[in-house]
């Protein structure tokens, strides 16, 4: 059986209560809003790209604890990194959330491993990946994205599409 307690562990509850990099970003060069129409949740991600590096990234929106903590930890993880590194992380996170990442192999997941348990809760996978889809959309200058249709992890390959 899935271990829900493992999912709602301290670090996730902490990021939910005190989200990092929460708010609006003045002069963002890239931004997007992500929707999960199944629950009505939405978050926006705004960042500035400077020579392919991400000096600033912020998010805000209405969402569950899993989504908010995922967004908060995502901003912490990618801030200061290059776009290319962030895109590798997006791919690895999406693979982990859908149970397709072998955590025994070298990867860049680090503290984000607290979300590994979400792959046992199919209805919650979308909560965890919404911020990452939204970040990808922002990189690609797509202003709005969702967890449905071709972005649905249950029906489509995930990654940089």
């Amino acid at each position: 059986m899935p271990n829900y307690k493992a999912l709602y562990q301290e670090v996730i509850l902490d990021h939910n209560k005190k989200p990092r990099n929460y708010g609006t970003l003045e002069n963002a060069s890239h931004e997007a809003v992500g929707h999960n129409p199944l629950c009505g949740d939405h978050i926006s991600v705004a960042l500035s790209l400077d020579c392919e590096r991400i000096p600033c990234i912020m998010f805000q929106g209405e969402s569950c604890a899993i989504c908010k903590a995922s967004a908060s930890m995502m901003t912490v993880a990618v801030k200061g990194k290059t776009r290319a590194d962030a895109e590798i992380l997006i791919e690895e996170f999406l693979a982990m959330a859908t149970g397709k990442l072998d955590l025994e192999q070298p990867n860049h997941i680090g503290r984000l491993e607290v979300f590994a348990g979400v792959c046992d809760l199919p209805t919650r996978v979308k909560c965890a990946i919404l911020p990452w889809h939204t970040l990808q959309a922002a990189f690609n200058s797509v202003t709005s994205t969702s967890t449905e249709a071709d972005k649905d992890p249950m029906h489509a390959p995930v990654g940089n599409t």
Partner: protein
Amino acid sequence: MSAVHLAVDPSSASAFDVESVRADFPILQLQIDGKPLVYFDNAASSQMPQPVIDRLTRYQTMQHANINRGVHTLSEIATSEYEAARSKLQRFINAREEREVIFTSGTTDGINLVMHGYGRKFIKAGDEIILTSLEHHSNIVPWQMLAEETGAVIRVVPINDAGELLIDEYEKLFNGRTKFVGLIQVSNALGSINPVKQMIAFAHSHGVPVLVDGAQAVPHMPVDVQDLDCDFYTFSGHKLCGPTGIGVLYGKAALLEKMQPFKGGGDMILSVTFEKTTYNSIPHKFEAGTPPIAAAIGLGAAVDYLLAIGMDAISAYELELLNYATAQMIRMPGVHIIGTAKNKASVISFTVEGVHPHDVGTLLNQEGVAVRTGHHCAQPVMRHFKVPATSRASFAFYNTLAEIDALIAGIRSLQKVFA
């Protein structure tokens, strides 16, 4: 808050013999994550008692063939059992005639049938369709599709903060262009029971036909379509202890006869040539193709089961569950009941401060408690209450006061996790 305050002592649990009822539902013995299943998602779909499961098995093992066409014994048996199910459903809702009962795939299918069969034939540009703010998406979207196609206009009855329809506002919406009314009898999102009989009478005083979405009403209370005098009434089998994939559309014979078919195919015709097809009489005109025969027979067994317990007894016991849960939840700090209509079916939509409904649902599931979380296919309702979503506990007659205690304990425990 105008919710019912009625403290009920668990030891005073009424004469209703819930333990013997529970013994009929094998699924209630399940454990979820090591905890006994507490199934409070009945408004989404109810569970099936053993007599219905047995009836399905008997049909598939001894009676199955296609209906209507065969002259062989099995086909005759299947046809007569299918028609016997129609007759049971006719009595269940007290329709005047069997031919007024059309088997559909469910409530959504029934509404779409009326939209295509009646709406597309009789509703024109500029005509007005009245719906309520409490409608399920299934009684909104088909009419929007019709409005888009024909240029008809949708008018919406507002609600108050208790989740009750504003009947004065409803009556003000009528004018010479009003051509159709769609009403939900019991709100799936909030549990509000709407005064549909009064609303139907008012529509009829303007010569306007009314469709009632009874999906959440038939499982909880006796329904008499002649007493309501509705023109159409539709519901699903799977919320009524029956199988999925089956439902009923009741329509007054005179209206059904005037309507155009919804789907074309076998069984709905009298004769076919490439020049001209003559349609079959009702109800067959609306039952194209091989219907879900087993599911219809299963639904017949389900209404037999419910009638043996008695819809009045079910209604009274579920009210006891509702009052017991409401009395406790109303006192819980940080818990808000959304929808406090004076007349409610056994549905409690609620929010927990600081905890998103999806987290509520996941954490309650950890205690074995199954609730629904989300917008319940009623986004206009959610918007009225300015919440993106709620958690919803919906009780059936096989639930117990002790299970409600488990829900309350589960909410307290998740509040601690998020404290």
